[in-house]
């Protein structure tokens, strides 16, 4: 742990994204359309390369993780799993944003610069194994978002959303930093691996527990967990569809991977774990109840993500590798379903405006494939088989049952019955309502390009296939999270 121990071969994704950031920075400065156009087309290739590198290196790193940068940076199975997800999510975000109607052409390189910078921060975050490194990586990912969110031309709502995100974000960051200082003061160490072996009960280490709570608060803000969720629906609604698609998915991954690492500190029965379980239950119930009342699709998805943040926490309270793996798996399920939902929304709203349920009317006739994909996403979000959402939820509750939080499992299951109503509305409008445009109003133009169809089909297939055959991914994730626990 004392050595720099740099191994560039294992840092493929980081290097690729860093290079991309530098190149895009140059393009944004130079303002020559031909260069920036070329660079923009390079982004998806880079993302694919990064995902492939992470995937290829994952099996080796699962059994033999490497710790670099004086122990602050851990390249292991878990980090590679999340790097794959981040790279692929970035790819989808790129396809969403490349024809984004609400960004001016000359700002496009800027937009992608910040998008890439944020993804780079997340990639660093997924490997950060030391609290200060976590903090820095998290801020790198967030600062870029502060710029991205208001980038919706001539939109006051976007400006409001951006401001809200900055103010809330700054407060959460300050809290996290303060918590970090308390942890250092009390435990005298910041390496997560070392912290996991220490005592975390309120009776013996009150300061450390308070510090950890505050630090986790920062993560919960990124994850939009109740009661740190207030920015979430407003930001989704205010920002452009394409930006929302990114904000709703990838930054959550960053928060989740940190929470998974930090969850190794917790075991059932600790005060912190109780708080986590309580917040999970509150978040699930609150998110679902609020989502019931929404008419704007993105706002509904915002509250739905509050609920899903709670689901992900369910796996963390069990204190077992299975629980952590279930959370990681559900994180994958979550971004798949959300990317698919937002993909369909971006395709339907070709002029970039916000959609309501009514805009989905008659979708099954206008574009059967988009409707089918949306249905897969909706039922996956509810947790109905045979989708990845169901398998993910099954593993979450199986892992959580029998560790003293059985009531949480019941809350999760009962919430399915609440959630079904508003997710079903997506299907209902897409399939059963006829599309009768009001006089003078035009039906929304759909994006019917090959990419639109292929992307929806691919993501939809993934949602179903991973729900039917989850075995291989699951065993990888499980082995990755077993590696997080010190062997003793």
């Amino acid at each position: 742990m004392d050595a720099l121990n740099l191994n560039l071969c294992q840092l493929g994704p980081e290097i690729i994204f860093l290079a991309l950031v530098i190149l895009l920075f140059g393009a944004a400065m130079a303002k020559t359309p031909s260069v920036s156009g070329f660079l923009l087309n390079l982004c998806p290739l880079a993302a694919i390369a990064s995902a492939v590198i992470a995937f290829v290196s994952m099996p080796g790193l699962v059994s033999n993780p490497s710790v670099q940068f004086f122990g602050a940076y851990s390249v292991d199975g878990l980090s590679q799993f999340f790097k794959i997800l981040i790279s692929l999510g970035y790819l989808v975000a790129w396809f969403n944003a490349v024809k984004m109607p609400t960004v001016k052409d000359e700002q496009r390189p800027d937009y992608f610069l910040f998008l890439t910078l944020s993804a780079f921060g997340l990639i660093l975050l997924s490997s950060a194994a030391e609290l200060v490194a976590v903090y820095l990586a998290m801020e790198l990912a967030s600062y870029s978002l502060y710029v991205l969110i208001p980038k919706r031309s001539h939109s006051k709502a976007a400006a409001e959303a951006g401001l809200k995100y900055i103010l809330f974000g700054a407060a959460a960051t300050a809290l996290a930093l303060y918590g970090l200082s308390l942890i250092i003061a009390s435990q005298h160490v910041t390496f997560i691996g070392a912290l996991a072996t220490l005592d975390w009960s309120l009776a013996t280490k009150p300061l450390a527990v308070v510090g950890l709570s505050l630090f986790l608060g920062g993560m919960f803000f990124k994850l939009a967990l109740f009661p740190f969720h207030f920015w979430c629906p407003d930001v989704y609604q205010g920002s452009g569809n394409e930006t929302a698609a990114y904000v709703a998915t990838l930054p959550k991954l960053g928060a989740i991977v940190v929470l998974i690492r930090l969850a190794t500190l917790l075991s059932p029965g600790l005060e912190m774990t109780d708080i986590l379980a309580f917040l999970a239950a509150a978040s699930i119930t609150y998110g679902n109840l609020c989502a019931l009342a929404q008419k704007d699709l993105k706002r509904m998805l915002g509250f739905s993500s509050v609920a899903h943040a709670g689901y992900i926490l369910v796996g963390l309270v069990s204190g077992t590798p299975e629980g952590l793996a279930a959370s990681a798996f559900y994180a994958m399920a979550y971004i798949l379903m959300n990317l698919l939902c937002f993909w369909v929304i971006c395709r339907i709203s070709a002029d970039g405006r916000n959609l309501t349920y009514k805009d989905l009317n008659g979708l099954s006739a206008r574009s059967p494939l988009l409707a089918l994909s949306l249905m897969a996403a909706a039922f996956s979000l509810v947790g109905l088989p045979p989708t990845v959402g169901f398998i993910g939820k099954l593993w979450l509750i199986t892992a959580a049952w029998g560790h003293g939080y059985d009531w949480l499992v019941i809350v999760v299951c009962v919430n399915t019955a609440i959630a079904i109503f508003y997710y079903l509305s997506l299907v209902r409008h897409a399939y059963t309502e006829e599309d009768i445009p009001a006089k003078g109003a035009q039906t929304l133009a759909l994006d019917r390009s090959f990419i639109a169809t292929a992307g929806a089909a691919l993501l939809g297939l993934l949602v179903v296939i991973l729900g039917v055959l989850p075995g291989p991914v699951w065993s990888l994730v499980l082995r990755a999270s077993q590696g997080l626990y010190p062997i003793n």
Partner: protein
Amino acid sequence: MVPPVDTLMDQTSYYPVLTVLTFFPVLAAIILAPIKSEIRVRQVTLIASILEVLLAIPLLGFKAETGFQFQELIPWAEGWGLNYAMGVDGISILMVWLSVLTLPFCVLCSWTYIGRRVKEFHVCLLLMTTACVGVFSALDLVLFYVFWEALLIPMYLMIAIWGGDEKRYASIKFFLYTLAGSTLLLVAIVALRISGGTFYIPELMVKGFSYTFQYWIFLAFFIAFAIKVPMFPFHTWLPAAHVQAPSAGSVILAAVLLKMGTYGFLRFSLPMCPLASVHFAPMMIAISVASIIYGGAIALGQNDIKKLIAYSSVAHMGFVTLGIFLFSPEGVKGAIFQMLNHGIITGALFMMIGAVYERSHSREISKNLGLGKYLPHFMLFWGLFGLASFGFPGTNGFVGEILVILAAFRESLGLGLAVIPGALLAAAYILKVTLKMAWGEPPSPEGKGWADLKKKEWAYLIIPAALVIYLGLAPTRVLGLITPSVEDTLAQFKAKNESVNVIYLTSPTGKPQGLFYERDLDAPAAPPVATRPATPASPEVK
């Protein structure tokens, strides 16, 4: 019970019958995708449905023995003990047949009834068959749950897209009600996995669980299954769904979907929660009797034919649950037989209502008068199914009902007497509607011009009619198929109840441990709980 190591192939046939039966409709649905012409879609689906029936032929080789047959087992997700396990025993074989046989009738009775979005309709129909066959042949709890929940989606779409005027209300109510019921089923499945150590149903069926654990599991099962059956206080979704659903939807709903609840009671509640089943039996019997009487009484007051038959379903399914919770061989056999009967009879009645609706465009009794004069063949079939519905001797309805009533009388005179008014009510409402439809004059002049049954309608009515008479006159073969499984289930049920009594009497610690911290019960250090005795139970339970 150790699962067979052999994998997808069972030894008795040339292909994995149950898997093929389950997933062939999915394949057919994929084949449908590129077809444009509506008539082609109907033809292809019809051919596929007949192929599906032909593919089920190896199931005729089902032997009247205990245990599961046609077993298939391959690991599904290792590390969680998830298996893809299929198999049928005497309890489920009839339901698999029912699910498979229903499909061609549904295609036929929708031939002219469904006029728009034809392809989507048939895809829904095929996917529903997949889920139905899957539910009855799954031997893994998660697999069962997957099919159980997956069924909701096509059924919802069927009501919501092709339904009547209040389709929106009915479809959402159906979805919410049934989904809310099954949320706790998932909790029960997870709890069984943690406590019992496996998702594999045959293994869980022979395990013993503590009383408290069984108590909660039974309640979770009860909510899910009672809503699906539906039993008396949970039945309100059924009339709405039935009335709004298109004919084919009603047929599947009545013939197959409702059976899932009673099947669940037989497959899960009785073997896995024997003590709790005994504990709750008085409640279950009371609710069953209430369903019988209430369903019958409400049916008597209906003016809408479809609503009438829907409420009669509540009453008929009350007979089934009553038979199950009497825990006697006659009762359970009668219940299973009644499940089959109700599927055939009510399915046929719903097809006939669809047929008459196509002529009169109304489901009101008063708009469908004089059919005896103008549609004599139609009335002939209606009369036959009507008689079978209220258990007229010589029809299959009689056999099932009499077995259940016998068992009720054997339990106690009072219970037997309590059921009798239900049987009388059934005769009353069926005869009332039949009488009104047969006599009188059509309210509108065009009623006189209605054509009698077409060939297609003959085709889909003659087979259920033949089954009604065959099962009514010669029920022995079918009863013989189910007898060994029923008796084995009951023998184990009784053995578990008896052995636990002994333990309760001798155990110094008193009651077993509670729900939440239960662990592997076969381990030696386990708290005193019910375990199956080493010797097979004596056959004296008969």
